[in-house]
């Protein structure tokens, strides 16, 4: 009785999910293993092999991996470090936490304006350089764009992760730390033995969110650089968007399916890590 009713309750969510997300993706899956305008024929993995030999795709893949590899660890470990340093704050901590959370909510247009104000042709950075006697350029359209995007990512999501870590660390009972200090443990040992194991599930969750947010940075990159930005920030989503604009549905669907595979693999790895740490914690 209970189980049957559940489906009725979840019906809107399930139907909507199927209609706008799941079934469309299955259709993409079909597109990725077939070829032809009009009548499509099954071609197996031919699209995939072609894709992985495509120069633009490999560039996009390299850029995306590079971006993820640099931006995500810095933001996670930086947030962890900062949230530990900021633990001692009681008063005013609320204001600061809100301020750090704010960049997440700022509309895209404002962030884009800000970036152009700093690194654009008539931006602040160029003004500084001019005073130092150097000539500046429109940094957004050079290879410095990669670092600009990284800084944008860090600016937006650092506060978010600090908040998540901060709350979790505060939930660790104080007596653990007092006992450790009484036993004469150094700060590093305290971190390794007490804080880190307890935080690990949170760290994994933050990792998941950070990866999700990497894909969100595409919007700023798109608004700043257009469809074909500088080659250092040509991301996977640029590739997909351009394939869409060029009506090249094969490429787009192939990339989507590959992306899903990678995400599934990562999620599986994360799940295994979580299970492993949970079993270790129970010891």
């Amino acid at each position, binding site marked *: 009785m*209970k*189980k049957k*009713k*559940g*489906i*009725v*309750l*979840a019906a*809107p*969510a399930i139907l*909507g*999910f199927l*209609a*706008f*997300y799941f079934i*469309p*993706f299955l*259709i*993409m899956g079909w597109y990725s293993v077939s070829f032809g305008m009009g009548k499509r024929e099954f071609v197996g993995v031919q699209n995939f092999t072609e894709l992985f030999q495509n120069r633009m795709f490999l560039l996009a893949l390299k850029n995306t991996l590079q971006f993820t590899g640099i931006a995500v660890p810095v933001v996670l470990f930086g947030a962890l470090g900062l949230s530990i340093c*900021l633990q001692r*704050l009681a008063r005013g901590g609320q204001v*600061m936490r*809100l*301020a*750090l*959370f*704010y960049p997440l*909510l*700022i*509309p895209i*247009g*404002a*962030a884009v*304006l*800000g970036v152009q*104000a700093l690194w654009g042709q008539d931006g602040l950075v160029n003004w500084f350089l001019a005073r130092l006697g150097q000539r500046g350029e429109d940094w957004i359209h050079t290879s410095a764009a990669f670092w600009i995007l990284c800084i944008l990512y860090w*600016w937006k999501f650092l*506060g978010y992760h600090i*908040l*998540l870590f901060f*709350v979790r660390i505060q*939930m660790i009972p104080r007596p653990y730390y007092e006992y450790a200090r009484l036993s004469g443990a150094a700060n590093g040992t305290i971190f390794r033995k007490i804080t880190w194991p307890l935080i690990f599930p949170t760290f994994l*969750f933050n990792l*998941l969110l950070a*990866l999700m947010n990497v*894909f*969100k940075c*595409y*919007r700023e990159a798109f608004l700043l650089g257009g469809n074909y930005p500088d080659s250092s920030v040509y991301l996977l*989503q640029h590739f*997909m*968007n351009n394939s*869409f604009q060029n009506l090249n*549905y094969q490429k*787009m*669907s192939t990339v*989507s399916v590959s*992306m*899903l595979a990678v*995400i599934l693999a990562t999620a599986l790895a994360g799940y295994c890590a979580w299970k492993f740490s949970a079993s270790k914690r129970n010891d």
Partner: protein
Amino acid sequence: MRAKKREYLLPGILSAAVLVPVFYMAACSFAGDESPGFSLMGYYTVLFSEPGYLLRFWRSLAMCGVIAAGQSLTGCMGGAAIAKYRFAGSKVLAICMAVFMILPVQATLLPNYIFLDRLHLLNSWWALILPGIFAPFGTVWMAFAFRAIPGEVSEAAEMDGAGMLSHVFHILIPAARPAVITLFVLSFVESWNMVEQPVTFLKGVRQYPMSVFLASIDIDRLSVQAVCGILCLAPVTFLFFYYQQELLDGIGESIWS
């Protein structure tokens, strides 16, 4: 006393640095268009002289409100079903939805385009609203939140003969109030910042909601663009300050289960 002041230095610098774009935009809004210097013409144009800007603002606000409310509603219903009424396949469904949460919009953009075209919804804001309401994020988030509510509460309700809907609305949602409000605010912010969907599903700048419209204002009307940017900040800032306690609780608590 000294130690206290020093403690404020790091967070103070962090907070100020993080808000730089906002200050810059505020400064730009007072820039004159033709003659450089202080001028209020940007504000006059947006607020009093051309109703188009404010009307677009209200329409976008309504659309995002609908999306946020719809996503919260379907999320609560779906999340309650997954967390409390463990029907056949609910675990698989939850994992499926979680995976789709991470997938970027581009993955489903194309089939959505074709589907919405068949429904003749392409050049209206329904093309933005419908996928937004059924986004998997809501269901996954609420499933997590409802899982933390002890089962005894639900069983007591079941014994009292409460119907399914009243169970959800009168017991589960009040118990998980911070999480529901956080979901509402997050999905509002997500739809307020929508970029890819309007550009793909709508034709022409005239139809764009505020988020994309901002980027398409002429660069030589900088003060107007800055004023519109500040306008865009208003609803988000209001939700942020009004629900700050719920946001901090919701994000903190609802993921520890």
